[in-house]
């Protein structure tokens, strides 16, 4: 009656399929935040495989050894109340495992909620990312430009995304660079990441937000800082201004393609909460020296 064979064959073949499935995006990190998370996930998978092994081995032994068969026909199983030492063992060992994983969790959560350790000395590039219907708006307050459905930033420089929403809750996710964070209408959330390779990364909303949700994707491109500066200058000189009317018509449209503007919506449609340093600015004579932010200002992220 022990027909578990097909079950295990299937599990085994699924594991064999793994490498054939193309890239496991989440386990293919291109920056320190995603790397931390990927390492955490792999560590937890290994620990959990250990737990599974113990349960499965015990399980197979019990089923093979104590199944009803002809040879044990008259056997009367004993009455067993339990055993406090055995029970204490399987309380204590899980507690140790959970304690270990708790330490890992707290440390890694703290790590990814802050600027990655190797980049603490650099000033992060602040980009406001906001969702509306089924599109993403990216405002670059330092450069005074705005893009829709794509975002560019320099490689090897910390980027601080500030997330909020003009509609349903969205979740901002670039799996190869960092874990996700919600964008909500009544508060601003923060996401730190650094890209360590140049290239295009898929980003998307992962929190269901209605009809167009499946298409709510954007491209995140990390480029050399020279290319980034050149692109910013191009945008400033060629793209049109984002007027309030234009922004409102963008919000009202369900889907749009890529858009580029030489000003941002932060002044007339400010993000929720305290963001005055980016809202009172007049972009024509913006002075970057006023924008120096020390690390204390970011302490709210690690509390």
């Amino acid at each position, binding site marked *: *009656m022990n*027909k578990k064979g097909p*079950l295990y064959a*299937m*599990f085994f073949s699924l594991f064999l*399929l793994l490498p054939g499935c193309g*890239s*496991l995006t989440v*386990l293919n990190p291109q920056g320190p935040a995603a790397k931390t*998370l*990927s390492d*955490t996930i792999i560590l*937890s998978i290994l620990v*959990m495989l250990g*737990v*599974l092994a113990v349960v499965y081995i015990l*399980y197979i032994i019990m*089923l093979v050894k*104590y*199944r*009803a068969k002809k040879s*044990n026909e008259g056997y*009367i*199983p004993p009455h*067993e*109340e*339990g055993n406090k030492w055995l*029970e204490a063992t*399987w*309380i204590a060992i*899980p507690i140790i495992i*959970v304690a270990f*994983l*708790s330490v*890992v*969790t*707290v440390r*890694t*959560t703290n790590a*990814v*909620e802050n600027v990655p350790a190797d980049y603490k000395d650099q000033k992060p590039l602040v980009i406001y990312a906001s969702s509306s219907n089924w599109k993403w708006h990216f405002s670059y307050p330092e450069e005074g430009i705005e893009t829709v459905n794509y975002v560019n930033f320099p490689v090897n420089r910390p980027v601080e995304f500030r997330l909020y929403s003009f*509609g349903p*809750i969205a*979740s901002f*996710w670039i799996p190869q660079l960092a*874990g*996700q*964070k*919600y964008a909500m*209408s*009544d508060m601003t959330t*923060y996401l730190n990441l650094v890209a360590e390779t140049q290239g295009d990364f898929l980003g998307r909303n*992962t929190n*269901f*937000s*209605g*009809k167009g*949700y*499946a298409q709510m994707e954007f491209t995140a491109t990390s480029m050399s800082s020279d290319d980034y500066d050149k692109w910013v200058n191009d945008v400033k000189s060629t793209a049109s201004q984002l007027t309030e009317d234009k922004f409102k018509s963008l919000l009202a449209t369900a889907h749009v393609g890529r858009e580029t503007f030489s000003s941002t919506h932060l002044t007339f449609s400010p993000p929720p909460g305290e963001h005055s340093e980016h809202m009172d600015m007049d972009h024509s004579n913006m002075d970057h020296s006023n924008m120096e932010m020390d690390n204390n200002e970011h302490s709210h992220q690690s*509390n």
Partner: protein
Amino acid sequence: MNFDLEKFKVHGEPLIYGAMISIALASIGIVVGLTVFRKWGWLWREWLTTVDHKRIGVMYILAALLMLFRGGIDALMMRLQTAAPDMKFLDAQHYNEVFTTHGLIMILFMAMPFIIGLMNVVVPLQIGARDVAFPRLNAVSFWLFFFGAMLLNISFVIGGSPDAGWSAYFPLASLEFSPTVGNNYYSLALQISGIGTLITGVNFIVTILKMRAPGMKLMRMPMFTWSVLITNVIIVFAFPVLTVALALMMFDRLFGSQFFTMANGGMDMLWANLFWVWGHPEVYIVILPAFGIYSEIIATFSKKNLYGYTSMVASMLIISLLSFVVWAHHFYTMGQGVMVNSFFSISTMAIAVPTGVKIFNWLFTLRKGRISFTTPMLYSLAFIPIFTIGGVTGVMLAMASADYQYHNTMFLVAHFHYVLIPGAVFAVIAGFHYWFPKVFGFRLNERLGKHAFWWIIISFNVAFFPLFILGLMGMTRRMYTYSAETGFGPLNMISFAGALGLAIGFAILVYNIYWSTRYMPRDKTGDPWDARTLEWATHSPIPEYNFAVVPNVKSLDAFWAMKYDKQPLFEDQITKIHMPSNTGKPFVLGVVFFFLGFFLVFSMWIPAIVAGIGVLIVLAAMSFDRDHGFYIPADKVIKTEKKLGGGTL
């Protein structure tokens, strides 16, 4: 009143029109059938007005099976739509409605009523009681659940189904972003059936605390009764939160209040918090009774008492407490900071400890046993390795940092199916096979049962294991389509194949019920499995008074002790037995509530007010009811017992 027929119409596709036609034909068929065979009176006297816990339990299970097929068809439609890239089977709106109702129906109108059904059938018998504490209230519970479920079920042909996910996050579920009546149905259908569930909670707590047979101390209760007691305590603490949240939602959607809106101080995350303060314990409401069912079945078919009874009870108590302090793990990504996330991470992972205790206790119950592989035992045994996968991936998800990568992906979907299907669905199927002969007096066919079992177990893994990998590949949940470049196609196709296999397995299960009803030999012993607990000490099918003589319990597994240690169980004389009378008022209350809900969904105020007054009138009529039931005379009991074979005489 602004009457607008357009609101009722669902402009859909051939699929929806097809469904409308089949619903209409089935309804006509039922009405004609009942009339032709003159069964209206029988239906009313024997079922619609019954207050017998066993019949109410059977009706719960029937309704749950129906909903299993409704939710299963939803699941097949979803897996088909995502089986290949750029599928054109469903459009976005229809897909959104399908996954929303799939979640709602499977949790609230399938898993929970199935468990409440088993509870109704089994618990009074296991504690040696004649009925639940409040039999008429029990009927009220059932009819409120039933008509709440019906209200949700008509939504897809009248006005449109809810489409904001089963968690209905605001502001998406607000009038601004979901202008159809779908989420009105959500708030009202769940409210009506939720009140029923809350009443069940009170009823069963009182039943278990006050109606136990003499000598049945708390620590002599069968494990299923223990799990039901703890579950109902969770219900009583968790459901009022849902009641309040749904009421606020209704105010927002029907009366223009601004609790969860974007503007005017509305807080969208307040909904998320309220929803999960109820929603997380809800998961344990459906899983703890499953633990109880498995404990009964594993002990019975190992021919051993349950290993570590005390630690089994303690671990369920700890799980129930922890279930209330982990809700924020549903939104680690809300930006609540390292401290808060760490607290919820650790409390969530802590649940693994008592759950592990239970797994090892079951494994050690098997040790030194003599294990027979009956169908209910197969489901219980399959539960252990599969649920452990669900459990360890749960620990992985509980790690807040890692969850930033799993949140809302298929990895999460795979995890909760790996927890809920072995944890709740296999359990109710196992319990269904196990207790079926008690209720109907014959077993289900073992060969067909095992066929269905292997289809279900293997297909389950084929359907859901690929989703873990898809999650790590970056596929998010609730996406109705994806492009070929994503590479999600092949694994989704495998998953669809698994879903088809599951459908075949469930079809065999239903065929088994039909086949066994016709051909299986009837069981005269009342104890076909050589079981341990009190419910097997009476006849099958069970006489309306359950036990002719109230049992005197002197140990755990009292029926086993009676059989093998010659411990006397029925020592008293047969005397007259008090029974409650049937009543049609709970059914009428359900109907009136249904209309109240329906009129409110469409903001038809005058009919709604009339229906509201109707509710008050029925409630008043119930409160002033002077029917105190009746007695079955002792000689009639003796006659019945003799006819049934007289095991307890």
